[in-house]
């Protein structure tokens, strides 16, 4: 089996082990490894794609990366539909089942702790966008008109200065708005994480993303959370709710490996 590796998607408790029909990365079937009251969801993957050296290249191929990310997410979502799930970081590949078993043995307590924190809870993603050009006050609304005597160059500079200033104002307003939204949503969540606003290339939108938050919410409060979000909608800001996600943003083991 030197040419295949064991790709790990997620870890759960062994209380409710679903039969999964979904295909994982590289269109591979998914199976389970059960050890120490934990379940690892894995696929056998070809090392000519998932070995160290090939990954160096393929991770930079956005098409390959996108396909692999979708495959990974498909499995995580399918498992999370059944049972509390700790999603594992993309392309975590072991050389054999024994290594995975050892992992489950060694990190048993950590996984149990993480899984108990996320049980009965879901992750919601909230992104807020503003349309800068619509809300920006026109420079003339804030700046006195250039004196008639001033030359065209001076007038241009003044306009440009005013334009820059109103842009800064717009950013500040947007930032305050994002903060308000985040605080209101945090009040309904068990935990929250602020993530870096997405680049327009990633978000596919040219608007300014002013908030990219993740909120861990008790499942019965999901409707309340969505209603609160609706209450925060207003002119000039576009709020987008995604999810529910498996708790990607809230599943963290201690960084240190066991000795």
């Amino acid at each position, binding site marked *: 089996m030197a040419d295949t590796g064991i790709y790990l998607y997620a870890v759960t408790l062994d209380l409710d082990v679903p039969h999964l029909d979904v295909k994982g990365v590289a269109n591979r079937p998914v199976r389970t490894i059960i050890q120490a009251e934990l379940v690892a969801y894995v696929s056998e993957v070809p090392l000519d794609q998932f070995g160290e050296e090939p990954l160096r290249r393929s991770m930079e191929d956005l098409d390959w990366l996108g396909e692999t990310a979708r495959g990974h997410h498909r499995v995580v979502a399918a498992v999370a539909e059944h049972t509390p799930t*700790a999603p594992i970081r993309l392309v975590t590949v072991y050389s054999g089942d024994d290594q995975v078993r050892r992992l489950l043995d060694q990190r048993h307590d950590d996984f149990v702790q993480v899984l108990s924190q996320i049980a009965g809870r879901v992750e919601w993603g909230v992104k807020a966008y503003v349309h800068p050009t619509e809300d920006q006050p026109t420079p003339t609304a804030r700046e006195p008109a250039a004196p008639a005597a001033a030359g065209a160059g001076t007038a241009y500079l003044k306009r440009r200065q005013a334009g820059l200033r109103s842009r800064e104002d717009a950013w500040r307003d947007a930032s305050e708005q994002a903060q308000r939204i985040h605080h209101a949503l945090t009040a309904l969540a068990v935990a929250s994480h*602020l993530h870096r606003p997405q680049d327009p290339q990633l978000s596919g939108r040219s608007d300014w993303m002013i908030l990219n938050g993740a909120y861990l919410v008790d499942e019965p409060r999901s409707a309340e959370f*969505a209603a609160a979000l609706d209450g925060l909608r207003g002119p000039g800001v576009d709020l987008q709710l995604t999810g529910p996600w498996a708790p990607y943003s809230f599943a963290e083991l201690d960084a240190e490996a066991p000795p």
Partner: protein
Amino acid sequence: MEPMRPSPARPYSPAGQRQQANLGDILERVLDRGVVIAGDIRVNLLDIELLTIKLRLIIASVDTAKEMGIDWWEHDPWLTGRDRHLLDENRRLRHRLAELEDGVEPHVPIRGRVTEELPPEGYGRRG
């Protein structure tokens, strides 16, 4: 795009997921979040961390993004926590990597080299 409405009755409906989750949302989750396992894994954690950071640099190097002042959150104190953490982590990982490559702890299984160079201008853009 229509705002997403939750459906608490079937919270993980795969069909719903496919519809709702765009690739950007998925990518940032599977690359940036989720459980990171250190230890005897075949594909080394350090490599992936650095690749992830590199990928982010590729994505963030788009000119239009810069024109839009895409780095604004770096000046905004309430959003900088994670980024600062990432920078620190990156620095720590580079330091650790340098140590490892110098053979300070040769028993830790790291093979190959990780390039720390930024990609050439325009790299990664898809036309």
